[in-house]
């Protein structure tokens, strides 16, 4: 038998060592928790950043090739509002309050209140005209486990040259109304450009005009200002699943969780003189 004070630990020593170890471990678990929070946060940022980059690039390409028509008579500057049904301006946009051009006369199923929308004609490299549009609406999906979810997304509406020709013909010859020009908008069918979108704001900025976005000048007219200012507000997926329909646009949601991306661009460049 060994004498006391030999190489083995006493119970007290072991307890002391365990206490020290546990406090160190506790500290590290706490750090781990913080790290994981930071990690999640960074992940959300990357995720929304990726979504935004893809969506905004697509929009930039479309809007940059936006085809607009100068009216054959009348003032060079013309208003998008009101005139949109009578003047040959085949594009339509709606901005949230303050720059509201007109109440949305375009009926979009499950349209997300207070988000912007834009519809227009774009040219394709082969000379064809396509109809394109962007809007935020809600789509309800059921996953494999039967979980039903209704989330708002950014949709891209597109009609190819054949359908565009039909729509244009209907617009100019018959009804002359915007819904005729952009038929069949359907959030259950249209392509999703970005998931979980809290808001889309498209502001048309015309020459010397800042209060309401009217008098947006078409880019084919020289030396006139015309830019689009596009802001996209995205929400992280895990949060979006918990949001009620009215929470998506709330100031609180935007301030705490949304990631916003914006850019400005000029529609199609003026043709060479």
């Amino acid at each position, binding site marked *: 038998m*060994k004498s006391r004070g*030999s*190489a*083995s*630990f006493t119970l007290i020593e072991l307890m002391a*060592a365990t206490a020290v*170890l546990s406090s160190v471990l506790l500290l*590290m678990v706490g*750090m781990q928790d913080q*790290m994981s929070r*930071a*990690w999640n946060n*960074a992940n959300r*940022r*990357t995720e929304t*950043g990726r979504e*935004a*980059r893809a969506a*905004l690039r697509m929009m*930039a390409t479309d809007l940059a090739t936006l085809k607009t028509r100068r009216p054959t008579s009348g003032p060079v500057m013309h208003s998008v509002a009101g005139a949109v049904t009578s003047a040959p301006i085949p594009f339509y946009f709606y901005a949230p*309050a*303050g*720059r509201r051009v007109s109440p949305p006369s375009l009926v979009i199923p499950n349209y997300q209140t207070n*988000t912007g929308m834009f519809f227009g004609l774009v040219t394709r490299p082969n000379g064809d005209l396509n109809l394109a549009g962007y809007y935020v609406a809600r789509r309800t999906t059921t996953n494999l486990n039967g979980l039903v979810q209704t989330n708002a997304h950014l949709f891209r509406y597109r009609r190819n040259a054949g359908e565009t020709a039909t729509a244009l013909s209907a617009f100019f010859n018959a009804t002359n109304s915007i819904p005729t020009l952009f038929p069949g908008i359907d959030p259950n069918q249209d392509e999703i450009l970005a998931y979980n979108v809290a*808001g889309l*704001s498209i*502001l048309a*900025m015309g*020459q*010397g*005009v*800042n*209060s309401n*976005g009217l008098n947006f000048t078409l880019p084919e007219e020289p*030396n*006139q*200002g*015309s*830019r689009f*200012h596009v*802001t996209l*507000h995205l929400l992280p997926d895990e949060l979006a699943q918990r949001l009620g329909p009215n929470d998506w*646009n*709330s*100031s*609180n949601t*935007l*301030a705490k969780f*949304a*990631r*916003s*991306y*914006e*850019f*400005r*661009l*000029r529609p199609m*460049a*003026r043709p*060479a003189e």
Partner: protein
Amino acid sequence: MKSSPAFSLVEVVLALGVAAVAFTAIMGLFPLGLDMSRETHEETQAALIAQSILGDMRDDYQAGGTSQTNRRILVTNTINLANAMTNFAVGTNTPTNVLYLGFTNHTISSANTGETNYSGALVLRPSMSAQTTSTNLASAPIWFQNGSNGLAAVARVIATSTFRLVDTIPQISSLDIMVETPGNIPATNRTQYGFRGGFR
């Protein structure tokens, strides 16, 4: 003394030391991952900043509407085309013009016309600008050289005039946009994202 089957204190301390080194190494990886994620985010923002600058530059509206030697760029926290445009010379007299922009994170206020519905959202917008005709860093504004508190990013835009085929005056400009982050540290320590575009 005969060796006992139990660990000695020295052995335990050594073992703990080894474990601590390993833990430290693992913990060291977390900031690395976060850093990369931040970099991705900044690259996205930089691309959007460059796109906005190019969009502003391509819009050839300026006061009077006849000369195309000035472009107007929006330097403001609110989107207000009429009141807050900064003229940027891209013209014929000076072959090279340099524009410096400072970007801040700005919370959209409910008072912002046109953005009422998005109050609370955080957006990155240019808040300060300066122009020179020299590309030397020494002639850049101090806030660009040394960084300034509150700036999230800065950008340097160099417009170079060149000839145009359909006119006698040189007017086409190539645009070099360098977006640098973060904006609160000296130029030499920033990450740079370069973009290039042209307009006429």
